[in-house]
């Protein structure tokens, strides 16, 4: 299992779709290689809606989990996942 500290990768704010896409693609590579991945949000102050869409909504995969999500980011996760799954 691999734990990725997003604060160490991005700093306290995950912002910008292109940056989040890089994170998503890295995670997808690891998952495709058979790894279990934990994305650790400890130290993340907040993220942009676009970043949330890339990391939460476009990355709905088994063997992937999130740790230390704030209440606000949990709410963002629920929102973007529901949006993408509803096709809205």
């Amino acid at each position, binding site marked *: 299992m691999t734990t990725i500290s997003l604060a160490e990768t991005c700093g*306290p*704010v995950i*912002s*910008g*779709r*292109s*940056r989040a896409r890089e994170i998503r693609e890295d995670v997808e590579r690891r998952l495709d290689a058979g790894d279990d991945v934990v994305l650790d949000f400890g130290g993340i*102050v*907040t*993220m*942009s*809606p*676009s970043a*949330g*869409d890339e990391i939460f*909504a476009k990355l709905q995969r088994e063997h992937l989990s999130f740790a230390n999500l*704030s*209440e*606000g*980011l949990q*709410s*963002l996760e*629920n*929102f*973007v*996942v*529901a*949006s*993408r799954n509803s*096709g*809205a």
Partner: protein
Amino acid sequence: MARLRRQFEIRLAGGYGFDHLERAIRDICPLMSHPAGEPFSVDLSGLAYIGPTALSLLVGVIKEREEEGCDCLIAPPKSELTRNYLQRMDVTRHLFDGAIPESFERKAPVGFRPVQHFRDDTDYWVAAKELSQALYERFSPDEMTSAAIRVCLDELTENVVQHAYTELGGFAAAQSSTKRKTFEVAIVDLGVGVRESLQRNPEIGEIADDTKAIHRALMPRVTSTPERNSGIGLFVTRMLLQANGGQLLVRSGRGAVYHGAKKHEEVLEASFPGTIVAIRAHYDRPLDLDHVYSMLAPETSDDDD
């Protein structure tokens, strides 16, 4: 100083602040109809003040004409204060093929950044970072406010790259007022406009006019590219400013929608080809994204009105 030849000229005089956008459009946008390849002049001699919104618009329109082969002559402001401000904002950075006239040579100031011109994914991120940094230098926001500013700038500049469908890209500027404890950010593009952009999504269908289009764009999950984008950037910005007591203005085509202390909409005579998004926020009040996200529920629609 070179004499201004008799040629097409636009003249800016007085002040062009956040609340004077229509005057800025009226005075600047006639330049957009100027024939390609023909020289023009911009008379700023009577200019007293120009805020980030009008400044981004001015630089964008001049740049657009320059890329159509028009030579531009700019008469600087007579006011030394205004001239210094334009120097700090490096207003001519993107013009004159980089050869800056002496009257516009920039001294290196803290808290000011040039009008940013961005065209792609790399550019917009750099532009957002630069403008955020300029604001941080001026009023040292706390961590959450810094984060909210950066996120808004990323979202709004990315919107141009994703949805404006223009090779020219976008123009953005930011400035703060220590007197009023506010900051202003503007993003301007000369692209297809909100209505045409949204109507590229076949699921959205016909939209009757520009004002209705802007209203739709401010709703959650509305985007011209649902396969790529989530359509909540502008909605979250709106909610953030509402909670802050700030203002959001979106101007496109003949529509203008204001959200904030005074919410209203207008259908205007002067059509603006492209989109202007301008925000004015209080930096001594919370700008809390976590709070805004906590209000999102999976079934959230536009329920603020």
